[in-house]
C-alpha cells in the first residue's frame, strides 16, 4: 500500500519513481539458521517467490537439500524479509510449532489489505500435512493463520481477493478457493481450467489482476489463460497462450503478459469486452532458456530465465514491436527463479541455485 501511494504521489507530481539502489547481492541464511530437522543434513535456502509489503521485500525459502531423485524438504519453510538497499534479513518461520505445518513454500503474494499469503507445496505427494496456505502479518513478522489443504491437492500459486484465496493444483488442471474469513477450503468443487496435453498439464500459477482472478494452465504442448470470477470462480473467458507457460503478470493498463517456456516467447493478452485477445509479442533468442517468471512495473516488463541465468527488461512499446532493452546475467549456476521490479529500471532476483538475492546489473542496448 505504501508503495502504491508513493507511486500515485510520484505520478501526480509528473515524476518517475526511483527506488533506492539495491545491494548487489544478499546471501540468504543456511545451516542451523534454517532449523534443519537433522542438524547433520541441513537444507539450503533455495529461494523462490518475491513480494513487497510494508516497505520490505519478502522471499520464500523452500529450505531443501539436494536429494536423489528429488530435493528433500530439510526443514520448515521460511519467509525472509529484507530491505533491498540494505540487505539486512529477518527470518519468518512458516513451519509452526512442529516445524512441519508449511514446507516448500513457492509463491508469495500481498493482499490489498497488506497481508502476505504463501502457498506451501509440501513434498508434492498430495497427502502430507505440510501443504498449506499461510497468512503472514508483515508488520509482526509472524504467521497469523494457516489454511490446511484437502488431500489430493498440491497448492501452486496464490491469488488473493477480498473474500477468498485462490490457488491452483499442481496435480490437476483445477483451481480451488479458501475462505479468507475462516481460512478453510470452500466445499465447492474445484474449477476446471484445462489445456491440451500430450504428457502433462497443471496450473502454473494464479493471480489477481484488475479485480479478476487469472489462472494459467500449462502443458507440454500448450497453454491457456483463464479469467475467473473472483467470488465464484466461474470462467469468464479464456485464451490460448504459448506452450508450457510458467508465469503471468498484469500491466497498469490492464493488459497481461505471460512467459512461455515451451517456445521461448512472451505473450501479451488484452482483456476485451468479449473476452481475451492474445498475441505473441516477443520471441527470445535461442541463448535464453527456461523462462521462469515475468513481472511488470507500470508498462515495463521484466522476465527471468533460469537456464541462461539471465533477466530481461522489455519495452513493449518499442518501435517495431516489443524489444529487450536491457539484460543482466547472474553468473553460472545462479538459477534465477523470480524477479521483482523495484522501479521501471531496477530489479532484484531470487537465485535458487546460488541462494542469493541479486540486483540486476543491466547491459543495455546501445
Amino acid at each position: 500500500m505504501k508503495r502504491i501511494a508513493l507511486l500515485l504521489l510520484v505520478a501526480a507530481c509528473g515524476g518517475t519513481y526511483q527506488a533506492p539502489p539495491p545491494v548487489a547481492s544478499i546471501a540468504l541464511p543456511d545451516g542451523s539458521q534454517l532449523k534443519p530437522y537433522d542438524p547433520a543434513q541441513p537444507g539450503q535456502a533455495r529461494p523462490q517467490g518475491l513480494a513487497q509489503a510494508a516497505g520490505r521485500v519478502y522471499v520464500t525459502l523452500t529450505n531443501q537439500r539436494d536429494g536423489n531423485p528429488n530435493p528433500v524438504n530439510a526443514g520448515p519453510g521460511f519467509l525472509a524479509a529484507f530491505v533491498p538497499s540494505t540487505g539486512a534479513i529477518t527470518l519468518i518461520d512458516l513451519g509452526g510449532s512442529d516445524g512441519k505445518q508449511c514446507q516448500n513454500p513457492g509463491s508469495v503474494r500481498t493482499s490489498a489489505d497488506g497481508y502476505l499469503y504463501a502457498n506451501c507445496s509440501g513434498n508434492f505427494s498430495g497427502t502430507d500435512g505440510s501443504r498449506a496456505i499461510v497468512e503472514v502479518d508483515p508488520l509482526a513478522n509472524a504467521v497469523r493463520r494457516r489454511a490446511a489443504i484437502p488431500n489430493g491437492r498440491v497448492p501452486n500459486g496464490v491469488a488473493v481477493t477480498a473474500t477468498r484465496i485462490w490457488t491452483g493444483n499442481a496435480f490437476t488442471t483445477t483451481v480451488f478457493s479458501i475462505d479468507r474469513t475462516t481460512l478453510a477450503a470452500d466445499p465447492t468443487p474445484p474449477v476446471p481450467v484445462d489445456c491440451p496435453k500430450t504428457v502433462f498439464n497443471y496450473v502454473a500459477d494464479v493471480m489477481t489482476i484488475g479485480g479478476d482472478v487469472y489462472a494459467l494452465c500449462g502443458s507440454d504442448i500448450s497453454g491457456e489463460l483463464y479469467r475467473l470470477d473472483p467470488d465464484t470462480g466461474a470462467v469468464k473467458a479464456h485464451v490460448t497462450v504459448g506452450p508450457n507457460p510458467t508465469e503471468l503478470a498484469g500491466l497498469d493498463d490492464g493488459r497481461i503478459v505471460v512467459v512461455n517456456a515451451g517456445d521461448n516467447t512472451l505473450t501479451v493478452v488484452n482483456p476485451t469486452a468479449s473476452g481475451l485477445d492474445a498475441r505473441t509479442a516477443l520471441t527470445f533468442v535461442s541463448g535464453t532458456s527456461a523462462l521462469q517468471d515475468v513481472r511488470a512495473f507500470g508498462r515495463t516488463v521484466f522476465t527471468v530465465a533460469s537456464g541462461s541465468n539471465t533477466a530481461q527488461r522489455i519495452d513493449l512499446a518499442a518501435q517495431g514491436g516489443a524489444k529487450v532493452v536491457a539484460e543482466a546475467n547472474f553468473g553460472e549456476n545462479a538459477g534465477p527463479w523470480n524477479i521483482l521490479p523495484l522501479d521501471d529500471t531496477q530489479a532484484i532476483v531470487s537465485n535458487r541455485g546460488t541462494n542469493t538475492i541479486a540486483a540486476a546489473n543491466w547491459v543495455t542496448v546501445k
Partner: protein
Amino acid sequence: MPPSRAFPRYLLPFAMAAAAAARAQEPGETIEVQGERRQGSPRAPAAAATVVDMAQFGGEVRSVAEMLSTAPGVSIHALGGPGQTATLSLRGASGDQSLVLLDGIPLQGPGGGAVDLSTLPATILDRMVVSRGVLGAQFGAGALGGVLELLPRSARGSWTGGAEASVGSFGTERLALDAAMPAGNGSALIALQGDRTSGNFEYARQLTPEIAGSPYYGFTRENGDATRGSGLLRISQELSGDLGLDLLLQGSAGVRGLPGASSAPTPRSREFDADGVAGVRLRGSSGDATWSVRASGRLDRSELRGVLAFGDCEDGTPDCPRQDQRSSSARAEGELALPAGEANSLRFLLSGGGEWVHGTTGAHRRGLLSAAVRDDLALGAGFSLHPALRLDKVGTQTGLSPGITAQWKPAPEHPLSLRAGWGLSYRAPTFTELYLERGGIAANPDLRPERAWSVDAGAEWRLALLTLSATAFWSSYRELILYQLFPPARVKPFNVGKARIAGVELQAVVPLPAHLLATVSYSLLDAVNRADGHKLAYRPPHRLFVRLARRGDRLEGYGEASFTSAIPRNAFDTAFVDSQLLLNAGIGVRAAGPLWVDVEAKNLLDKRTYEDLFQYPLPGLSIALIARARL
C-alpha cells in the same frame, strides 16, 4: 594457468627436421594408390551404406565419432570436447534407434541404450560400415535408423606391427600399439590404445545474448579431463579341413570429468566406466554350405560420482550417493548359408540369450530370442533381390521385422547400379527407459516398443576410385519414446511421438590430378513431428562435408571443411543451435624408414563460440603432432 593451445615446443625441432627430410626426398616420391573401395555390409546387401576406412585417416588424431561424421546420413550428438560422451544418429534417428556391432556383437550402453562412441578406441579398428535405413530384418530389432558395424583389425599370417603417438593442445595425448603374428595354425593380433586429455580448453560466450553486439567473455573449461585405456585381442585358428575358430576379446576402461553445460558447469561430477566384449566363433563349410556358431558376451559398468539432477554435489556426502549401473548380455547364435540353385542363396540365423542390468535401475533381466531368414536372389538381367524376415523376442515383447532390398546393374562390371529398399521394424524400450530412476529422470515400466518403417532408393556410379552416389529416403515412426517434462521437476519417457523423417544423402569420391582425392558428402534431413508439424529437435537439416586428401609414399596431407546448418533445439521451431563451419587441415612426411610425422590443426578458424546440441562448449583451434610407424 591458462591451457596451452600450441603443441609442445620441445617437439618443434623434430617436426622441422622431418619436413626437411621430406623435401629432400620429393623427386623420388612414389604415391600410394588405394585399392578397390570396399562395398557395404554383407549382412545387408543392396542397403544404403558407406564404408569408413580407418587407413584414410592415418596421421590424424581422430575419434570414432569424428570419422563417422564424414559419412552421409550420420550426425553425432556430442557433449563437447575430446573424451566426452558422443552418440550416433543415423537418418535422424536417436542413438537408441541405431545398432552398433563390434565384429557382429551388439554393443549397448550401461542402460541398454545408446552406445557412447567415445569409449570405442579408433586405432584398433580396420573400418566401419554404416548401413542406413530400417534394417531390423537384416540386423535385428532396434535398427530403425540403421546400423554401425565396427570391424576390428584382422590378424594376419605374418609378423606386422605399428605404433602411433600423438600430443596436442589441451594436454591431449594418445599412444597406440598393435602387433599381428602367426600363432599355431593361424594368427593373432593384439592392439592397445591409451588416451588422455586435460580438456581444459578456452571458449567464449555471451552473458547477455538478448543484447545485440554484447561482448563475448572468455572461460576455461573445467573438469573436462578424460583418461581411457583400450585393448583388443583376436586369435584365428584353422583347426582341420574347413573348420576354423575365431576368438575376440575387447575391453575399455576410463574415467572422465562431466563438465556440464556452459551456463551450469558441474566441476565435481565424475564418471568411471569399464566394458568388455568377448566372442568365440566356430566356422566351417560342408559342400556349398557354410555355417558358423558363436557365443558372445558383454559387460558394462558405469559409476557416476558427484552427480545430481540439477547440478553436482560433493562425492561421499550423504545426499550425494554414487550411482552404479551395470549391464551384461550373453547370447549364442548359429548361422547357415545354403545355396539353393545357381541363382539363389538362403541364410538362416537362430540366436538366443539374455541381458541383465542392475544398479540404479534395480535388478532386471530379460530373454532374447531371434530367428531370421534371408534370400539372395539373382533374377537375371542384372537384377538381384534380397528379401529378409526376422523375428525378435525381447523380454515379453515380440515383433516381426520384414525387409527387402533390390539392386540392378546393367552388367557385372558396369559402373552404374540402382538400388531400393524397404524395411519395417521395432525397438524395445531400454532398461534405462523402463527402470532408471536417477536425478531428474523418471522411469516408465509401461512403455511399449517404438515402431518404424522406411523406404529408400538410390543410384551409384562407381569406377575405380570414382564414386558418385545419391539416395533419397522416407521413414515413418510411431509410438516414439520421448522424454517429456514431468512435473514438478523431472523428465519421464512416454510413447507419445510420431514422426516423419525424409532426406537425401549424396556422396562423391573423386580422384584428382597430383594424387589428390576429393570427398564430398551432403545430408538433407527433414524431420517433422507429425503431431504438430514442428521440426524435431536436435536433427541437423543440412550437413556438408568436403575433404581433399593426398596420400603418398613420402608426403601426405589433407584439408577438410564441415558445415552444419542451424539445428532446432526445441519442439516449437523457436530455438536453434547456430550453424557451424569447421576447417581442419594436416600435413605429414615420412621422416625416416617407416616413421611418419604429421602435424594437424582442427578448427582452424579458432571459433570458440560453438556449442553442441546441449549447450556444451566446443574447443577452438587445437594442434597435434603425430608420429607413427608401421612395419
